[in-house]
């Protein structure tokens, strides 16, 4: 074990600030932490067990004969190791996290407490149904709210995340088309869509065609209408779209799509902007997933778990996947493969083992009950208000391509137009890190050059927005003036810019005792 296993040596030249180096590589509260594999031992453990009863083994002669190579740590070492690592992360708990289309809002801790109640946390998915009535009731209550909030007649609860929900919706559409003997092969996706949309359509066996946006950042209705035909199965629309704009002609789009015999899939990633304000069911939508980890605040946890229930129109409801929950008198019933035959023979099948993300359902229901109908409406209003406040406070220093056409919804979009040569969006983003903020979504959607998509959410105070605006205004000024020091940002983060090319060219995906990157 070396003193400083990070690969950085105290003898390196002092960094840009000319700070003195320390022998450990630490800088006060910024602590370097080696890998588990450099500090643990296969003989160390942080768990005590009872003595083993003596029995003959019945392992079919397949006992392990080689060591696995899994080092352990005692409890104090493990807690310190992971606590130190946690401090190298930015998080909503630390500050504004304005990732556009990701809805990084506060995660109420009551939700965590509820999810850990033994009656929810310590229940097996295959327990007999009479022993899990409360769990089934949670699913049913959450489903009720989702239907009311979207104005749709049915919901499939089991998809595990947004993209999984997209897949569920597209498979319902495919099953409905097949049921009427209609072999359509094309799914239309706007060029501004999330990458998951075309990937989902392809995953479900469809060919993907792109439809353009108009100069106002909306779907080009005429282009869409002219492409519709007997080969088009569905159109996938994000509304509000990824430019942060509501599609005012959504109903007309849906009518045109239906007239052509196709279905409308709506990407519900941006539902936070409209929850309690307008119902997708009134817009002619056939299927829409709801990211519980966005609108309904279940924690993102560094990249999941998510949860993506899908609301469905009457035309698609018979094809929903198993299992689902039904209320039968005062009892709740889980409809699985064997009981489906009676009245749900059109189901396209099963998407997951067991019944979906129960731990997310309890959190989302807790969140919804806390807000109620009035609170959820206020959520959308405050989210939109905060985004417009940012749009109007920055449009004089950053190019806002759609600002002139009116207000935005829950997120504001800017481009890199006007930056000095050689300075781009990533430099502004990395400089924001030094100012104590997580950057916005960068270079997405693709329809805006050097896009910066800012979604503040409703859980930010005005003071927090003002500080963010101050930071962006300052950095935008430097970007326009050609301040080359931006290219060195971040300089105060746990790491400087990382070499992603090296990582992809020579992938090191697991720890190997003898190798280090770049050697």
């Amino acid at each position, binding site marked *: 074990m070396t003193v400083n296993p990070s690969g950085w040596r105290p003898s390196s030249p002092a960094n840009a600030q000319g700070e003195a180096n320390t022998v450990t590589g630490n800088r006060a509260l910024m602590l370097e932490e080696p890998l*588990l594999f450099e500090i643990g031992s296969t003989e160390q453990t942080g768990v005590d067990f009872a003595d083993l009863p003596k029995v003959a083994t*019945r392992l079919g002669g397949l006992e392990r004969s080689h060591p696995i190579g*899994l080092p352990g740590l005692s409890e104090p070492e493990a807690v310190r190791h992971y606590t130190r690592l946690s401090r190298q992360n*930015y998080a*909503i708990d630390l500050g504004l996290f304005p990732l556009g289309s990701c809805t990084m809002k506060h995660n109420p801790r009551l939700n965590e407490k509820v999810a850990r109640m033994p009656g929810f946390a310590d229940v097996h998915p295959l327990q007999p149904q009479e022993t899990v009535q409360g769990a089934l009731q949670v699913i049913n209550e959450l489903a009720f709210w989702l239907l009311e909030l979207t104005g749709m007649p049915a919901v499939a609860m089991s998809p595990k995340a947004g993209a999984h929900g997209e897949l569920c919706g597209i498979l319902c559409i495919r099953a409905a088309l097949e049921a009427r003997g209609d072999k359509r092969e094309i799914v239309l996706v706007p060029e501004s869509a999330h990458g998951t949309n075309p990937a989902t359509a392809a995953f479900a066996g469809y060919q993907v065609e792109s439809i353009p946006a108009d100069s106002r950042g909306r779907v080009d209705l005429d282009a869409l209408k002219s492409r519709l035909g007997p080969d088009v199965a569905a159109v996938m629309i994000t509304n509000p779209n990824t430019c942060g704009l509501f599609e005012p002609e959504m109903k007309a789009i849906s009518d045109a799509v239906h007239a052509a015999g196709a279905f409308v899939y709506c990407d519900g990633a941006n539902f936070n902007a409209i929850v309690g304000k307008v119902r997708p069911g009134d817009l002619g939508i056939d299927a829409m997933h709801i990211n519980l980890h966005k609108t309904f605040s279940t924690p993102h946890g560094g990249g999941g778990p998510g949860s993506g229930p899908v609301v469905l129109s009457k035309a698609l409801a018979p094809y929903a996947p198993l299992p689902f929950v039904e209320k039968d008198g005062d009892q709740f019933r889980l409809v699985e493969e064997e009981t489906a035959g009676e009245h749900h023979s059109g189901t396209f099948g099963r998407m997951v083992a067991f019944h979906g993300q129960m731990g997310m359902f309890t959190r989302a229901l807790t969140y919804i*009950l806390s807000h109620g109908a009035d609170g959820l409406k206020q959520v959308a209003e405050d989210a939109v208000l905060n985004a417009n*406040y940012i749009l109007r406070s920055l449009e004089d220093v950053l190019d806002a391509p759609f600002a002139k056409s009116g207000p935005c919804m829950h997120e504001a979009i800017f481009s890199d137009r006007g930056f000095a040569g050689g300075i781009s969006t990533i430099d502004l983003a990395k400089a924001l890190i030094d100012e104590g903020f997580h950057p916005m979504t960068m270079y997405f959607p693709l329809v805006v050059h050097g896009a910066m998509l800012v979604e503040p959410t409703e859980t930010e105070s005005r003071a927090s927005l003002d500080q963010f605006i101050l930071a962006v205004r300052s950095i935008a000024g430097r970007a326009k003036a050609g301040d080359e020091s931006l290219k060195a940002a971040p300089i105060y983060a746990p*790491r400087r810019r990382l070499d992603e090319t090296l990582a992809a060219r020579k992938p*090191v995906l697991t720890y190997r005792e003898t190798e280090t990157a770049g050697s």
Partner: protein
Amino acid sequence: MRYLPLSDADRSEMLRVIGAGSIDELFRDVPAELRLKGPIKGLPMHASEMAVERHMAKLSRKNLVAGDVPFFLGCGAYRHHVPASVDHIIQRGEFLTSYTPYQPEIAQGTLQLLFEFQTQVARLFGCEVANASMYDGSTAMWEAILMAHRVTRRTKTVISSGVHPHYVSVATTMAKFTGDALETANPQLTAETDADRLIAAIDGETSAVVVQYPDILGRITDLTPIADAAHAAGALLIAVVTEPVALGLIKSPGEMGADIVVGEGQSIGVGLQFGGPYVGLFACREKHVRQMPGRLAGETVDAEGKRGFVLTLSTREQHIRREKATSNICTSSVLCAMAFTAHMTLLGEKGLRQLASLNHARACEVAERLARIPGIEIVNDSFFNEFTVKLPVEARPAVHAMVERGVLGGVSLGRLYPGVDALENGLVLAVTETVSDEDIDALDAALKEVVR
């Protein structure tokens, strides 16, 4: 409303800055006739933390808590003791409330942890590389079948009858849409697995063979001959592990020649939670890594030469490749992966072996005990912590009858394979370290009564 920081004064002042007369002006792109006028009618209004907690607690009490009764359920979800510090670690706000690590300079905590996770999974499974997790075991298995299809450019997959029926159901559902041909069968209540059938079914068009290890009935089969037969035909072997604790005691699938090993990581660090969220494990050979789905953390250096980690090989993924991506997966199951890694780190190899040995010893005790009940037959010759018994009566009503006696006494095969007469007397019992002597007595007594 306690989660909304803006005051009415803030709202008015901000509207003034924006230049809007009212909040409704900001929603002017929504056609007026579609805009809801007030809160949706018929729904409750906001509620205090205390009131919501009371309601949810009431619902939670309608469930029978696994830890409150003698408990023997498995079949893809296992009840193990999770050290208290695991939950503490994943509730650190910096982990809980962070996002996918797109900005690596301020996400080294998540990235390094995922690198540790990938290493632990790869080593446990006996593979060269592992990804940063999938939704769950069942979706990981389907992704593995698709990956084999990309590697071999073949579309026929032979699935062992010992694979969890929900996993098979997910695969058959998805295959209807992709055109992949799957060969499956129901298991038989015998000590032998269907290894011979699998080997016989492999031909020059086979993309992959899928085998669960230990299987749905708890049997452990040597994967080596199946791997050899698959490789000889140019096919891949996909192994599925739903109880990774077993690998503390038995050989890893990679060691026996599996090319892709997927699994459900729930049993390490993640509670039962009525089926989710769980964590899909996915490992393979290094030469196939560019066909792998999902997020990958990789090692690199920063501008000063310090070691750091980034998400890498993203040219496989949907946000870059769109319809040409290896999968549409975007979110994985990072928080559960963190729980897995924290628990595995606390165990270490020594602890994992002890845990696995304790599970096996407990299961052996229960099997011996139940074998003495007249009319009950133990199906398995080999098992880890889960085995199948054949009752003299139908198992499904027996399970309900045991509930009436306060015992959660296993999963009936009737629940998993409805309508399959040959399996209706089968009962699968899982026995982990959480089972006490009193629990075993209670199971023994309840089973004796219900088979009488």
